[in-house]
């Protein structure tokens, strides 16, 4: 039994205006959702309605517009808290995306808690956004970033993980690990990994940039200290994102950026800070984006995260079947637990050439290292071709990809 019938998918597609455009004269086949997904009409409307009727700074004005804007902005925090099943709304810090969220933890938490020789445990598959901030902090305080090795099938080596947790490379202070690999699509057993870390008193951060948009994620169930993700990867506007933080942890953290909105009282003899989460939200926030982000959550919940996950699993399986029949094509990441990503290389054909040709056929894929150079190195490639799906992706689009790939081979003679 398919998760959705064709009529339902068609009706979902009709809600995304961008899907009706053409590219180089051909219908758009958008398979780059892991980089940025598309916005349904309801999100575009929510943003534009906000801009037309309530555009005003939040938290600062007694006037009507400012109050309405604040309601919308803070309302998105409530929506997010509910979406993630957070214990309280104060656990939701609104950021401009996963990158800012991770940097916030690196600077506010890392600078305070990491010492020379301490280990920040990441994975070999990490996005640069979950490597570089730790290296920056490490260059100041001498903490080191150690990767959990990945296995050939795109999963993480759990035995090696246990040894590292037990101090093989030094005392681990933080496990900062992705939930889903953006380069390969593997879903890692983060709940178990977080539990193993927590039982040793190790703090935990989950990079949920590729999981929160594609499956149910419950922070109480996951039990991590921090969770980071971006709105633009889940049908919301860009410039929106979340850092979830366990209240007891957030409460003890100093601010990272200073400015308006994050203070209690400012004077030249000393400044006191606002409470959590506003302490971490210096400056005018992206309130317009927040309006759209809330609408994106409505869209996702209306369909249901369980069903989205099931549908995308179906699409991944279909793509594996379609692509694995092509001679000279090799899929990277063959572990059965995968979210909507299929990454592959083609013998004798550079990913850049393939991407250029697919683009000419109207097919948008991502090529290159996907901001995960260590992962590419692990699999001995300089880059891959990555197709990533969303709830509006269809089997026929995947067939178009497979046909496109065959055509690329014919032209480039791979």
């Amino acid at each position, binding site marked *: 039994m398919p998760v959705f019938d064709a009529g339902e998918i068609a009706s979902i597609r009709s809600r995304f205006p961008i899907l009706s455009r053409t590219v*180089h004269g051909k219908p758009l086949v958008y398979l780059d959702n892991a980089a940025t997904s598309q916005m349904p009409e309801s999100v575009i409307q929510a943003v534009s309605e906000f801009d037309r009727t309530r555009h005003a700074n939040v938290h600062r004005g007694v006037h009507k517009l400012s109050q309405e804007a604040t309601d919308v902005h803070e309302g998105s925090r409530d929506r997010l808290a509910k979406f993630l099943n957070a214990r309280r709304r104060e656990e939701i810090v609104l950021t401009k995306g996963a990158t800012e969220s991770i940097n916030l933890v690196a600077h506010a938490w890392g600078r305070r808690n990491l010492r020379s020789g301490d280990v920040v445990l990441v994975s070999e598959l990490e996005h640069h956004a979950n490597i570089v901030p730790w290296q920056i902090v490490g260059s100041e305080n001498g903490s080191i970033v150690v990767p959990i090795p990945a296995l050939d099938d795109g999963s993480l080596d759990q035995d090696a993980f246990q040894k590292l947790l037990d101090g093989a490379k030094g005392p681990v202070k933080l496990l900062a690990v992705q939930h889903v690999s953006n380069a390969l699509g593997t879903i890692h057993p983060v709940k178990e990994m977080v539990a193993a870390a927590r039982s040793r008193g190790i703090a935990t951060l989950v990079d949920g940039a590729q999981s929160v948009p594609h499956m149910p994620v419950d922070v109480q169930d996951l039990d991590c200290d921090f969770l980071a993700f971006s709105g633009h990867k889940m049908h919301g506007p860009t410039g929106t994102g979340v850092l979830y933080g366990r209240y007891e942890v957030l409460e003890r953290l100093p601010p990272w950026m200073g400015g308006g909105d994050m203070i209690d009282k400012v004077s030249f003899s000393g400044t006191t800070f606002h409470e959590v989460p506003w302490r971490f939200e210096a400056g005018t926030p992206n309130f317009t984006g927040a309006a759209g982000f809330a609408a994106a959550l409505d869209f996702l919940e209306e369909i249901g995260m369980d069903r989205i996950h099931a549908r995308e699993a179906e699409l991944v399986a279909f793509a594996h079947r379609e692509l694995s029949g092509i001679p000279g094509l090799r899929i990277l990441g063959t572990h059965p637990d995968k979210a909507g990503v299929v990454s592959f290389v083609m013998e004798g*054909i*550079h*990913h*850049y*050439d393939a*991407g*250029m*040709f697919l683009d*000419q056929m109207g097919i948008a894929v991502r*090529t*290159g*290292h996907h901001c995960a150079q260590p992962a590419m190195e692990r699999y001995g490639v*300089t*880059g891959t071709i990555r197709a990533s799906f969303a709830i509006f992706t269809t089997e026929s689009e995947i067939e178009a990809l497979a046909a496109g790939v065959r055509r690329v081979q014919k*032209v*480039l003679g791979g």
Partner: protein
Amino acid sequence: MSVIQEREDEIVEEFSMFDEWLDKYQHIIEMGQKLTGIDEAFRTDDYKVKGCQSQVWLQPGIENGVVVFKADSDAAITKGLVALMVRVLSGAPAKEIADAPLEFLERIGLREHLSPTRSNGLVSMVKQMKLYAAAYASQEAHHG
């Protein structure tokens, strides 16, 4: 008319035969395949031009008083575009290279490959070519 201008016009003429994108790209790829490439000794990081998706190597030199370039890339399309650049610039008077506006890519509908955000390394290669030529031109002016 300048040497570079003449060569550009020739290329534009050549590309005007193609209506289909595929034919155009096939022609570019063929030009890449005919490119002699660089001497192995130059295939090092020192001669690698920064690009994030495809890599480009550039080997500049002086032969009989003119600036000559050899180049290579690991991606077929990029290599073809590299060949196109070498064909237009190599052996032209140094000052002309340094000042060349290189509008022909626009005229053959390939301007997007030279946009600064393209990660193919082509923009950096052209920049390197021009810098090299400019340095040589100023040296020439100095000595002669």
